[in-house]
């Protein structure tokens, strides 16, 4: 499902919700590291205003290696005692690649964060889009009214994402005209 070559992706780290450290809402200095593999990672600035609801709205451009199946999003907090990982979320590549959705589609994704012990700790909101190499067609620009085209074969994984179960094959989807 993943392409063999490395692709550039644009991850915008939007905001976090209800972040806690030792069960207490954090005050400030939360930041986020996004990793696509051991070598490829980028970090946001520290949020100083939002408290336990930090907002970063920071765009990070990363390479997505062809073998990568998921990226990780880590929320850290800097305190006087040092740097702590508040929670981590695993983002499957299939959440923003594959299926019928155009490659340049801007995906808004949110994930539950879990700490080292696997306990729930807040939510992280991000948006992800594949960087198009030259002449990218954004959704808003490619929109042409009432296109009567037939659907082509989807790129990559044809079963519309990973986790959905039970799409009845006999519903004979491709016969539908749009």
């Amino acid at each position: 499902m993943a392409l063999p070559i490395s692709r550039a992706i644009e991850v915008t780290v939007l905001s976090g919700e209800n972040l806690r450290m030792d069960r207490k809402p954090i005050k400030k200095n939360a930041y986020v590291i996004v990793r696509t593999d051991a070598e490829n990672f980028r970090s946001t600035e520290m949020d100083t205003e939002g408290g336990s609801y930090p907002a970063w709205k920071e765009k990070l451009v990363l390479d997505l290696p062809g073998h990568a199946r998921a990226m990780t999003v880590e929320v850290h907090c800097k305190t006087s005692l040092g740097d702590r990982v508040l929670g981590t979320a695993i983002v499957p590549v299939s959440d923003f690649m594959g299926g019928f959705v155009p490659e340049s589609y801007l995906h808004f994704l949110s994930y539950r964060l879990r700490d080292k012990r696997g306990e729930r700790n807040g939510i992280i909101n991000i948006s992800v889009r594949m960087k198009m190499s030259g002449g990218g067609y954004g959704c808003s620009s490619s929109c042409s009214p009432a296109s009567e085209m037939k659907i082509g074969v989807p790129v990559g994984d044809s079963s519309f994402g990973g986790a959905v179960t039970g799409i009845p094959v006999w519903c004979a989807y491709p016969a539908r005209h749009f």
Partner: protein
Amino acid sequence: MGNCCSDDAGGRTAVGGTAASQANSRDAPNDAVGCFFRSRGYHGFFSEIELSLSASDLLDRDMFSKSDPMVVIYEKGRDGGLTELGRTEVVLNSAHPTWITKHNITYHFEVVQTLVFHVYDVDTQFHNIEVKILKLDEQQFLGEATCVLSQIMTKSDRSVSVDLVSREGPGRSNRPRNHGKIIVHAEECVSSKTTTEMVLRCSDLEYKDLFSRSDPFLVISKVVESGIKIPLCKTEVIKNELKPTWKPLYLNVQQVGSRDNPLVIECFNCNSNGKHDLIGKVQKSLADLEKLHSSGQGENLFSPTSVGHDYHNKVLKSQLFVDKIAVGVQHTFLDYLAGGFELNFMVAIDFTASNGNPRLPDSLHYIDPSGRQNAYQRAILEVGEVLQFYDYDKRFPAWGFGARPIDGPVSHCFNLNGSSHYCEVEGIQGIMMAYASALLNVSLAGPTLFGPVISHAALIASQSLATGGRKYFVLLIVTDGVVTDLQETKDALVKASDLPLSILIIGVGGADFKEMEILDADKGERLESSTGRVASRDIVQFVPLRDVQSGEVSVVQALLAELPSQFLTYMRTRDIKPSV
């Protein structure tokens, strides 16, 4: 305003203005914001429309000249009764008049608003009389026309031309006579789209707390004629700060009234007990604030103090600065409609055995030969009759779930029309017919699974994205019971939250629907899938269909009312513009 701050997380956030739907779209669902919008009539839900009228080829009723036409505009109620909305002026001697009088009408997305126009020829003898007091039965009737407001709003030029008909009945003449046409043009009032963005800052605020600096926030109110202050928005609370800069505020010109309307900007110190102390205030119009911005200077806050019976204002050292002020236009739901966006309607019907044998009158699926609609039919009609105007080809995908088709195993997503190739039916009538015939052709079974139909709707939505369609999808699920596959349903919904799709669930029958409310993020936490992904926005609305008394606002209308804002959240977060 004060007790809003009693709950910690919700209360300290900014409220009001027009960008809030954008700002809060991915934040935790905020009931306060929802109530606030509802109470104030946030224009995602409705909008002021100005109607202009013209006509062509009107009949000549006067002997030696053309007619002197006037139009009376009515709104037709659900019971068929007409309510007069207004009258135009009389245009003299014209068969192709363009009336100048404009009529304002409030467009409600969730209601089918039928407009009726009666055109009269007003005789010369009445020309000196106010049109409002003209007796209509003394005037000559030139014809009437009917159209639906949403029909006009979905046209790209916002105009429809309707043939006038006489009400004399067919008996009078056998050949249809040309009575001319009336052209109705609708325009959204421009002020509703213009928003002003402001960044405000204060300096040298006073200490109000005993052991720390103040926790300031601003409340902006407008002053109406009677001197009453109406709060428009408030900023977030900045803790422990004497020179705060708040996040951008968004004010709508319609809320403010005009640029010269006085606004009271009050700075409070937030107290967790809800009794916020006033630090100081200023009174400025938007125009004044613009001047303040361009001069780069601050305005001193004052605090009203009472000395005996006299009130006088004590000028404080604290100052208010305007760091940024910019006027922008925010696209409305109607802009997107005019730009060719459509809402595509899809239906999924519950065929599980808990509905009861459809041949027996106590079944929820019983089709009464007298024509009385069952709960399923009512739900489909009530939603469908509103949404059909926003779907241009009026071909609706329709599915059933939880039944065994003639010679197969139980299916959780079968085409209602019986076809194995395509799922679409023609028009609302098509849905009703396919539903009735499906009842004869399938045997009810179970369990109640939503996952497959939601995934199917999501597939259609994602395929539409692939072809660059300007479409937003609305799936209506009508069900009599609680879902069995709650986690799979959640998984499918979480995935769908990233697509142009909203889901309406109507519960029919007497079951306990408490579990269904979990799916509606308005009433609980954000949906979480089994893999830890969380819904990026609220796309589900659930409502149980109880017997609606006549005259009551239908629950279905309340359900539909949220669609425009869900649509706008999707478009605005992706920065999709209405025009090509």
